[in-house]
Structure formats: C-alpha cells, structure tokens
C-alpha cells in the first residue's frame, strides 16, 4: 500500500489524538501529579503513603492530605508565617532558604514528615538533608524519635548562629567566628570548614594545612588520590572510619589552633 503526504498527515493526527483519547478513557492519561505519594507496598506500613515520594510541586496542604501532619505544623516547622499554610508550595522553600549554606528544601520536608509521623525513611539518602531549628524543636517536643533518628537530627539541624550541628564539631574559635551567611530569620548558619565528615577528602586536609607526612603516618600508607573521600579510603582499606577520623581531626585541630 502506498500513502501520500495528506494520508500520512491524517493518520498521524488520528493515531496521536485517538491514542490520547483512548488512554484518557482508560484513565491512563494524566498530565499533572496526582499529589498522592506512592504507598508502601509491603511490610508493617503497607498501604501508607511514603514520605520519600513527596515532591516539590506539592503544597503543605497536599502533604497534609497524605500524611498525619497539619499545614500549620509544617508552616511552623519551616518558618512560614505569611499566607495560607495549606497553599504554600514546597519548591518555594529553596528560594526562601536560598542563602542557607546547607540546603533546606523538599528533602527537608520529606525528612520532617517521616520523623513526625514515624514512617520509614532511608537515612542513607538524607546525608545532605538538613532541618531548620524550629522543625527539630517540634520533633523533639513530639518525642517519638528513636535513638538513631535522634542522633540524626542532632547532626542535621541548622541552628541560629552555627552550622548544622555535628557531634564531633569542636567549638573552636574559627567555628564561632567564621562570618555567618545571613539568610532568613530562620537560618543564620556559620560555615565551619575544619571538621572531618563523610564528604571530606584528603585534598581538604592538605588545604587545611595538615602535612602530607602526618596523613600518611596515620593511614599507614602513601597518600592516595587527594580527591578521594577519606571515608571511601577507609572502607576500601578496611579501616574503621570512626577510629581514623578522630586521629585525623586531632591533626586538623593542631594546625588550626
């Protein structure tokens, strides 16, 4: 069979729009988010909405519809004082907290909702997720955090006048006096760069002034690729990062005193 341009044009339009109409009839044609997070499919929480699927296009109202948390609580947690809390869009958080040295955004809402409601959440994916102090205060007041989550919020809270708190963060003069990045009334964070964390590389240590020889002495080998994460190196060499970290931190503190 041979077809010409007019026939092809007609077929393309008919098939395209016909397919869309057919899929619409079958309920498959959705062009907007349903504002309903996916649900846990198995385990103790099967059938409940998964906070990890909260999206930036949601409003606090959408979140409240899916989880046992009110827009007012969310607004209080994230310092939203103006307008209708239910209509507040999550993606606006990144704008409001744009100057924060540590990101507060949709991920923070996911984390807060999971902790507030007691639903499961993979903390391994939340390493770079932080909460405002107000959110942490609400969680602590609610009192339903287990030890792991309690430790997590302690290390992932942006408190006024200091960086996200970390258990090993020394209260060095540098930490207290580094100029703070003024952002909003909710977050006034101080950048404290001399604390070894999971994301610290050997290059960071060298740039902080730790002699290469000292590093090599502590790791018991020649300096690897400086861009390598210390944590990854420890894992690769079967070293205990929690043992290596304080030793290296002591060297950092020496040169920074």
């Amino acid at each position, binding site marked *: *069979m041979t077809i010409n341009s007019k026939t092809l044009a007609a077929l*393309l339009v008919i098939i395209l729009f016909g*397919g869309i109409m057919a899929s619409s009839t079958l309920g498959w*044609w959705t*062009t907007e988010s349903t504002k309903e997070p996916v649900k846990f499919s198995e385990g103790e929480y099967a059938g409940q909405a998964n906070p990890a699927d909260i999206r930036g296009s949601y409003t606090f109202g959408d979140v409240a519809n899916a989880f046992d948390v009110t827009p007012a609580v969310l607004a209080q947690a994230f310092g939203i004082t103006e307008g209708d809390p239910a209509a507040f869009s999550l993606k606006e958080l990144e704008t409001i907290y744009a100057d924060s040295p540590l990101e507060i955004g949709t991920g923070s809402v996911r984390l807060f909702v999971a902790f507030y409601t007691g639903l499961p959440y993979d903390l391994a994916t939340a390493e770079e997720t932080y909460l405002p102090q107000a959110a942490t205060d609400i969680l602590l007041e609610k009192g339903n955090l287990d030890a792991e989550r309690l430790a997590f919020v302690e290390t992932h809270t942006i408190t006024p006048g200091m960086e996200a708190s970390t258990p090993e963060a020394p209260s060095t003069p540098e930490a207290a006096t580094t100029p703070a990045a003024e952002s909003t009334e909710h977050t006034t964070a101080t950048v404290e760069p001399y604390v070894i964390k999971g994301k610290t590389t050997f290059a960071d240590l060298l740039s902080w002034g730790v002699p290469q020889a000292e590093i090599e002495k502590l790791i018991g080998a020649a300096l690897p690729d400086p861009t390598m994460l210390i944590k990854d190196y420890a894992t690769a060499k079967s070293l205990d990062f929690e043992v290596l970290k304080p030793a290296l931190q002591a060297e950092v503190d020496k040169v920074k005193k």
Partner: protein
Amino acid sequence: MIKLFGKQIRIFRPRSIWIRKVVQWFFFAFIALISINHTLVESGSGIPFLASASLHALCPFGGVETLYTFLASGVLVKKVHDASLVLMGIGIFLAVLFGPAFCGWICPLGTIQEFVSGFGKKYLRRRFNHFVPFKLDQVLRYARYAVLVWVIYVTATSSTLIFEAYDPYFALFNFWSAEVAPTALAILGITLVLSFFVERPWCKYACPYGAFLGVFNLFRIFSIKRAESTCKADGACSIMCPMNIQVDTKTVIRDHQCISCLECTSEAICPVAKTVIFTSGSVK
C-alpha cells in the same frame, strides 16, 4: 504532468510537502499554548477551555527516560507523568508503521530548527547543509546514541530527570521560567544558531529520542522506496533530504536518520511520478 519519452514528467511540482508544515506548526502552537497556559494556571490565572499540562507530560521521551525505573520499581521518575508513557507507546506504534514520523511531522524542536534553516537556505544557498565534512558527519551521526545511553543510565541510577538540565525542547517552551537550566538555554541557543548552517543539527547529532526512534527505521512497515526502473538518477532526492541521506543510491531507505518527511518523494522533489514513494509494498 506531461509524457516525455514514455515517462510521466511533472513540470510544476510543489517544492515542499505543504501539509507537513501545517501539521508541524499546528503541534508547535498546540504545545506552546499548553505550556503558556500551564505557567498561567500555576500563577492563578489561565486560558479558559485550554488544557494545562506540565511540559514533561507532553514529551514522549519522558516515557523512555523513566522506563527502567518504571519496570524496576513500578514508579515514575519525578516530574514524569503517565501521559509520557502513553505518548511513548503511541510514538513506538507510529514508528513501527512510519518510522520516526514524529520527528519529521510533530516534534516542535524540529519545526523551529527547520524554520531557522529556511533563512540559512536563503542566504547560504548551495553551501547550506554541507558544512560538516562527510567523514566527520558520518561519525557524529552516532553521537546521539551515546547521548541516549547516557540519559537512560543517569536517569536510571539517579531516579531524577537529569536530562532536563540539557534539554533544548524543555528550554524552548519554558525559557521564561526559572525552572530552565542555563545549560538547556545554551544548548537551545547553539542549536538554533547551528540550524542556520545545518539542517536539524540537534536531530542529526544529539537528540536521544531521535536515536531511539531511528532504530525503527530498520524494520518499519512503510518506507521510502525508489523505483530504479523509472529513476532518472538526477540526485534531486538526495539534495532535498534534510538529513543528507543518499536516497538516489538506495532502493529502500533504511537509514537510521530518515524522518519520513517525504520531501524526497515524487510528491515533492522527484520529477518522475511514482518513482520515490512511501509504501509498504515493493517497487520495481
């Protein structure tokens, strides 16, 4: 039509498949209006009786991008909607029948590239579309498969729409939005500038969806076919082809870059009737 030496010769032939332009600009306007309306609706207003949809939902490539995540975990990559999967299915169905007709007839990014190319053809004349050295061009034609593999890989491993930051289609219909990454705007700008010199540069060298649909050229049902018995071998079909396919050296076009635009056929540039045709059957 006149009969000359026993062959049907068309004297006044159309220079282009005009119906294709109509379809192309219809879809361009359609997508543009929906995208504008989406922005208006988000800001509290909107055009009555006009659909509002996220641009991601109107892109069949979104379905390809999310396919791995969908099959592996049953969920779509964030920002991709069910409509993308539907469009992907329709796109595949069309491609099995007609090859990448989506590229040649529907894709608005192809339309805007052809629009800019119109100026290139006017000012550069015969030099237009012949700037890239042949050997280099032949190698670069496969770069879009590398882009396709990269996009699928990074989307599968990150479960986020990484390609959005580089997507000129998204930039074209959202350039007014803060959602568009500067890289996407830059790629759109480069694409449009290059379109002045080369026909459909994005489609030829970088489009991952074109790469995906291009595979269907190998086994599509309707193909461009050339009847050797009546062919004058004047090379008009090859000169006209926007994708630089040497139509006059083949009897069946299975080239992965064919976009089924029909510009090479006897309905357009070929002066001999029923010599280059779009058919599911065979020609002599």
